[in-house]
């Protein structure tokens, strides 16, 4: 029994890391039709923000709180200056955001001198529950992820701003004629997606150390998740990420680890072959 609980916790913990990273990517892809190839670097910037706070002697948790805000502002500025020019050409958008990501990644690499930096988690160690030890920080990530999913979903489905977002994605022309400022909404959505990436980076960096490639590791799996879940809904990418995360954490129990990594892709691609629309098919949110 202990073993099963532990296994479930471990898989859930990694799955929530995956979901957290995919959320921002999924929101931007679903709502705006843009695949943000710089997403991994937004995650990196979130992590780097925490590092800067830590370096200047401030508590790590202040950095974790600040990271989404910093990234929201960063995303807003980027959308206003660059991203908004890409809406008409999604393919160019991929290349453009990739280039942005490359610039960010290599700049951070330069700033870090190519080194790995360790950042302590604000809640280190483990706690015991029914005789089983659980990692405190992974639990925090689990709880925050659940809260973020619930919050985002409520915002998109239950608030007037959510209605406006959904409306302007369904039919931008009609939304504009109803007096909804679509450019402003796009900017807000992009900033929101960036903030989610920043939060993800800030929360996972104590687990993985800061290095310029921290986002890159997850980027490909994150895209796979969005593909698997289906673009155009909020739930789709979340489900996709859960599937990819659980498979990635679960497979090494069954097969040798070097095989597990490619196997995740094989499984996901097989599913996409039979459900090219993804798990959830529906118009955009």
């Amino acid at each position: 029994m202990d073993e099963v609980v532990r296994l479930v916790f471990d898989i859930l913990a990694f799955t929530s890391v995956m979901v957290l990273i995919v959320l921002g990517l999924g929101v931007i892809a679903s709502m705006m039709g843009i695949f943000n190839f710089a997403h991994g670097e937004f995650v990196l910037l979130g992590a780097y923000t925490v590092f800067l706070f830590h370096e200047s002697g401030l508590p790590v948790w202040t950095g974790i709180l600040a990271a989404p805000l910093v990234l929201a502002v960063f995303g807003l500025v980027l959308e206003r200056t660059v991203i908004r020019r890409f809406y008409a050409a999604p393919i160019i958008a991929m290349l453009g955001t990739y280039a942005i990501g490359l610039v960010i990644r290599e700049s951070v690499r330069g700033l870090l001198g190519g080194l790995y930096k360790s950042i302590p988690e604000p809640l280190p160690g483990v706690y015991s529950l029914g005789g089983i030890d659980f990692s405190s920080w992974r639990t925090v990530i689990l709880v925050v992820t659940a809260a973020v999913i619930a919050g985002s979903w409520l915002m998109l489905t239950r608030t007037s701003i959510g209605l406006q977002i959904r409306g302007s994605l369904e039919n931008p022309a009609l939304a504009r004629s109803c007096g909804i400022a679509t450019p402003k909404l796009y900017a807000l959505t992009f900033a929101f997606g960036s903030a989610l990436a920043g939060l993800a980076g800030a929360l996972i960096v104590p687990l993985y150390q800061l290095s310029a490639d921290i986002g890159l590791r997850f980027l490909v799996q994150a895209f796979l998740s969005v593909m698997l879940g289906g673009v155009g809904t909020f739930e789709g990418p979340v489900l996709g990420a859960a599937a990819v995360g659980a498979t990635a954490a679960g497979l090494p129990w069954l097969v040798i680890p070097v095989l597990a990594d490619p196997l995740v892709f094989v499984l996901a691609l097989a599913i996409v072959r039979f459900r090219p629309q993804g798990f959830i098919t529906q118009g955009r949110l």
Partner: protein
Amino acid sequence: MTQSGEDASGTAARGLGRRRLLSGASALTAAGWVAGTSGGWMLRPKWANAAGAIKMGIATDITGAIAPSGNSNWQVAQFAVEQINKGGGILGKPIELYLEDTASDPKIAVGNVRKLIQERKVDVVLGGITSAMRQAIKDPIVNRGRTLYIYPQLYEGQECTKHLYCTGPTPAQQCDELIPYIIKKLGKKRFALPSANYVWPQLLNKYARKVIEANGAEVIFEEYYPLDQPEYSATIGKIRDGKVDCVFNTVIPPGLQPFMKQLHESGFQKNGGTLACVYYDENLLNFHPAHEMEGLYSCLDYFQAVNDPFGNKLQADYAKKFPDTKYLFTAGSASTGMYRGVKFYEAAVIATKGDLKREAVSAAMDKGKIADGPGGGAEMVPGKMHCKMNMYVAQCKVDAGKTRYEVISKAEMVDPKEC
């Protein structure tokens, strides 16, 4: 004959501004470095000898993924060569240093190394850090280039190319002291070998397994992971279920931190488990939070904690030459091997009475011996292209949140057992 200082720095400034600034080699602005006409760099001493200079080529990773090690490496090369030049060079001849960036990329490296051989016509090449790099550049240097090559990093062994000398520790040197210590002194019997999936862990584990079994302990599992695997719960499960009491780790960054954290959180160390990792040097002291480092065993040819007068003097002089540098003079980053390599070459040229021909120097290297170095002297095993050196087992201690190594045992002149 003397290269004037102003001339040199003027050329450096122009060369930098024009095309090298973006290549990430900013540290090369150190006074005296001159940008070459075809890329690459050279460092001349302020004096010269009518008989010409000894040309030493350094091929190391100034940029790219393992730039931190590469930069420590060339800083140490510069440091060692400067010491020799200050003392009058080798038999009155100064050493000129030529640097080519191997850029952590064997494809780029081969071309750049060829430059050292064909254009610079260096007398010896030192460098390469990863095994992939050594494999890529050894042929252009030793076979086609007909030049002596010295490889400074601790590695997996089995490199037995003529005229290629290895000055870093081999698996035998890293395992023969540490593993019996863990089994006999600490009483550990059940080993796990979690590893990154590439050649160094594979061959090191092969040797480690032999030593483990010869000492009456057993290997519960030996497993390889993609280098950037982020999740290790399955591994931790095996460690727990297999009642493993010693984890002999060869997982490397970026997969290292998640592994160490999950291992620590599983209570492995708290429940009396021993963690050993033979590439841990001073660079890795602050790599993890202190509580995750506590109690870790490493085995290398030098730790600052060895506290030998010669090593301490070296560290002090190195700190003076590169104040506040982030590139430390440590064993894990191939720096001690680099220092040893330069000194072995010096000794060999003295033995040949200044003859720089490869065969002559190589023959002298083969019987080479250096009296001093960080952690002690070293001695080539004739015909084996590897050297005996002192090895130290050290354990990581934590005082008030600060980590440090404590040297536990010293083994004198350990045999590399290669070739």
